[in-house]
């Protein structure tokens, strides 16, 4: 098997150019689903691979509860550098589990606390808070019903049509359950840091998806663009990471790119693009990468189980 055991750990590198191309060329809905699926598959494979390496690598540690047969030389030969890799895999796997568990717990806490904060209000879908600080977001339900939270500070900056665009945007987030995509890519990026570009890409494509839905609802792309632009200009908040020294839209933060996309024509919905375009290469590359990664992990797992079976009297 050789170094191929480690393949699922580094295959997520293939996601970098894919995330970039898919985010620019695919319909935001397709891009979100594709990239989230790719991220989830790659993260599961990578974690599985880490677990297998750990089992083989640690079976030889004195005092471990694993059967002696698992440290058989034959088994260890299957994993290159088993001593170093096996020992390194222990803290890595625990770190992944701990960080993912913490994220999971924290997102539940934020949601619970935000719902509790709104407890005294009438149970309407839109909660308008009298606050001079302009902000708006979609608060997913999780058992309760999802709510759109918006402050009077933000509504005061927008004209009636733009307010409708804002509500349509947030409702689109709730209706399509975008928080699940966001949580999935967030966990994936923590399971394997190579998947971080996918997380950035998905948080952009979910916004684009909601923008497009809002544009369809209010019937004017320009109104949505103007609502986003105005809201961004009055909003405080830390600037999004923007690469310095580069000019043009490609290097701009997510907000100007969203506005520019809305001022352009609506993106076409295609089920699967042809292989002979940049988009096709991106989409098919992503799919192939995910499948190869999954097969590689499955291959590692099956081989490992077969070797362990042969080496142990179980």
């Amino acid at each position: 098997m050789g170094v191929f055991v480690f393949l699922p750990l580094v295959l997520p590198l293939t996601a970098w150019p894919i995330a970039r191309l898919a985010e620019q060329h695919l319909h935001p809905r397709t891009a979100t689903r594709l990239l989230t699926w790719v991220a989830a598959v790659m993260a599961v494979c990578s974690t599985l691979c880490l677990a297998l390496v750990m089992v083989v690598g640690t079976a030889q540690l004195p005092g471990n509860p694993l059967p002696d047969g698992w440290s058989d030389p034959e088994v260890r030969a299957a994993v290159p550098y088993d001593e170093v890799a096996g020992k390194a895999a222990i803290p890595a796997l625990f770190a992944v589990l701990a960080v993912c568990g913490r994220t999971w717990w924290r997102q539940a806490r934020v949601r619970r606390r935000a719902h509790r904060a709104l407890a005294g209000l009438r149970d309407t879908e839109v909660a308008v808070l009298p606050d001079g600080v302009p902000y708006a977001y979609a608060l997913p339900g999780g058992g309760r019903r999802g709510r759109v939270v918006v402050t009077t500070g933000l509504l005061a900056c927008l004209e009636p049509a733009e307010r409708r665009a804002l509500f349509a945007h947030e409702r689109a987030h709730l209706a399509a359950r975008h928080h699940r995509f966001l949580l999935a890519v967030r966990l994936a990026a923590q399971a394997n840091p190579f998947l971080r570009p996918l997380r950035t890409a998905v948080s952009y494509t979910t916004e684009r998806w909601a923008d497009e839905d809002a544009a369809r609802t209010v019937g004017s792309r320009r109104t949505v663009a103007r609502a986003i632009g105005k809201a961004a200009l009055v909003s405080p908040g830390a600037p999004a990471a923007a690469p310095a020294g580069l000019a043009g839209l490609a290097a701009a933060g997510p907000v100007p790119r969203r506005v520019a996309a809305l001022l352009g024509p609506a993106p076409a919905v295609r089920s699967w693009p042809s292989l002979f375009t940049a988009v096709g290469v991106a989409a098919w590359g992503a799919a192939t990468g995910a499948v190869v990664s999954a097969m590689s992990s499955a291959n590692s797992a099956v081989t490992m189980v077969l070797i362990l079976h042969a080496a142990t009297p179980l």
Partner: protein
Amino acid sequence: MGEQRQRPRRRGQGELEALVLSALKEADGPATAGWVQERLGGDLAYTTVITILTRLLAKGAVTRERSGRSFAWTCALDQAGLAARRMRKVLDSESDREAVLASFVTGLGPDDERLLRELLRPAGPDGED
């Protein structure tokens, strides 16, 4: 006065403000600082209650009127105002909120503002709709 009393534990300003506000909310009409202190179980010093009320006054969350030699305080916030305060507290204290709350807009980078104004210029208030 009351300085010799040990507070059970140190609490954040936001938490104290919330306690005082909720006590005022329960009063029928204007209440004095002494009433608020009593209502809170007396584990806050009188001066602390006054300090918090003054801070809330500056924020517009309470109003006061003179009654005799002291002030009578009233909570100026309704349910929505209280909810807004609670929500701000949640948002300020959770660094991880992006995981759940998809914000309408993210912050702008240094060049983004100029770029955005350029993009929106033809779509300004006079533009077609």
